[in-house]
């Protein structure tokens, strides 16, 4: 099973990974939060990252997005070493993310939120005079983005007035506005009802052809429905990586993680 963690197993047809980390290490004082993590995501693939609370998933995401600097190891994205690049530069290269805790701009309307996300990918914003509310290029793209996630009718509502599920949808519309090549999804289903979750699973399934995804999720039904590969993180260390079937059968995983889930 150790061998499964190595990309060699997938043979020679494997495309160049979009995102890969090489022996990433992050310490907080004495705590090893990321312990030699090497993981990759290929284009058109959903790679799920699971693990119990405190396994270091959020720390890993933080390093991938550029909010945390790793102590050692490298991160490559789209063929470039991005280990030292700031967040905004990584986003420009096509690394989108949605947040674990819903993080929309609460004082802005839904469409203003998405319009800002569109604006982020439309050249620089050192434009001081023209009114964004009459900027058709931004507004139309934003409306399309809202329509795509099923929020089209709520465009004018203030983000803080949206329901939790709607905010999660808005979050994804914002992440997609820049047409990212890879999406980091940090617990997208958190706090969603069964029906909303199922709709999101279908949506992400359809999205797969457009961009690769690294999915962090506690909802195991969603993970096993969506993921092409699953990596299990415990105490900052990868204990297993492979197809959903391989992970289901893995004894250490059953004990360390799935066992805890059923308990």
């Amino acid at each position, binding site marked *: 099973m150790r061998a499964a963690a190595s990309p060699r197993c997938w043979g020679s047809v494997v495309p160049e990974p979009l995102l890969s980390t090489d022996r990433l290490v992050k310490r907080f004082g004495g705590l090893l939060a990321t312990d030699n993590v090497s993981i990759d995501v290929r284009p058109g693939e959903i790679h799920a990252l699971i693990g119990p609370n405190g396994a270091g998933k959020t720390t890993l995401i933080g390093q991938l997005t550029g909010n945390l600097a790793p102590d050692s190891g490298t991160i490559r994205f789209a063929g470039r070493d991005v280990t030292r690049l*700031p967040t*905004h530069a990584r986003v420009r290269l096509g690394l989108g993310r949605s*947040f674990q805790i819903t993080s929309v701009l609460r*004082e*802005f309307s839904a469409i*203003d939120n998405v319009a800002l996300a569109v604006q982020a*990918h439309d050249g620089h*914003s050192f*434009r001081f*005079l023209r009114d964004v509310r009459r900027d058709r290029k931004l507004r139309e793209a934003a409306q399309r983005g809202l329509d795509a996630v099923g929020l089209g009718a709520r465009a004018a509502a203030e983000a803080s007035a949206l329901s939790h599920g709607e905010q999660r949808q808005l979050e994804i519309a914002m992440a997609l506005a820049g047409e990212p090549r890879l999406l980091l999804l940090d617990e997208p289903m958190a706090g969603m009802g069964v029906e909303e979750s199922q709709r999101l699973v279908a949506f992400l399934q359809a999205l797969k052809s457009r961009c690769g995804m690294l999915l962090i999720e506690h909802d195991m039904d969603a993970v096993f429905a969506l993921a092409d590969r699953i990596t299990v993180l415990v105490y900052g260390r990868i204990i297993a990586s492979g197809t959903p079937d391989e992970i289901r059968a893995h004894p250490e995983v059953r004990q360390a993680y799935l066992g805890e889930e059923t308990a």
Partner: protein
Amino acid sequence: MSEPLLSPRVLVTALLLAVLAALPLLTQAFDQRYLLSVGTRIVIWSIAAVSLNIILGYGGLVSFGHAAFFGIGGYAVGILSAEGIQNGWVQWPVALAASILWAALVGALSLRTRGVYFIMITLAFAQLVYYLASGLEAYGGDDGLNISRSRFPGLLDLRDKATFYWLCFALLCASLWFCGRLAHSRFGAVLRGARSNELRMQALGFPVFRYRLVACIVAGALGGLAGILLANEGAYVSPAMMSWVKSGDLIVIVVLGGIGVRFGPLYGAVAFFALEELLKPALDLMHKGWGEYWQIVFGPLLVLIALYARGGIASLLGFRRA
């Protein structure tokens, strides 16, 4: 965004601007010269408050050192004047350049910090300029410096009180127009977005630091302009014009008027100076000699505004924060 043409806020704003536009005529008609100088100060402080509103209101950055721009704009004019360069076409660009340079330096260093640290580092930089000015023995030190007003030969005579007032008022209108546009431009959207959620804006791909730095520079230029005008108003510059209390007054004006609202700074400045001018006689009326102690009422008023009236005057009139 359409709104009824005769809503209270439109009426009040239009009336206020009309009174301000006609102020020199009114004060002459009623023979109240003193009010014209109060009016001039209100207009100049409004420009400074508009400038602070860019970073404080739209950017959400509590700068406690904005009066430094009074000093830098003012001293640039004052020092050039003391060195025999009276021409406004030289003085003003130099003063603006100095303000921009200072804003860029302070912004680049301060924007690395957050929250209380940002408040304090901006205060410290302003104190630095304050002490530099009071150490400039050659230019008056603590006592300040009498200067002659900027000259624009053949164009304007700033010694004429009405002319000077109208120049200030025109510049205020221009800055109000500019800030209104800025608030809803792409740049303004980034600035307001970062006020709401900085991390999110970075994750969207905005280099927030650069946008905030440019906001500081724009605000600095406008603040420097107010300093230039203030120096010309009194034909005098001194360290006192940039004491930390003045920075506090500017924050008070912005909050009092309505933070992040285009006309907020104007309402705030009018209310601030009107309160001072009205509280004194009102207290004197209650008991002879009490007028001197007007701040004993004004202080608690600020506490009440902070606690219960965050939207300021603008929210009373139905304005929404941009």
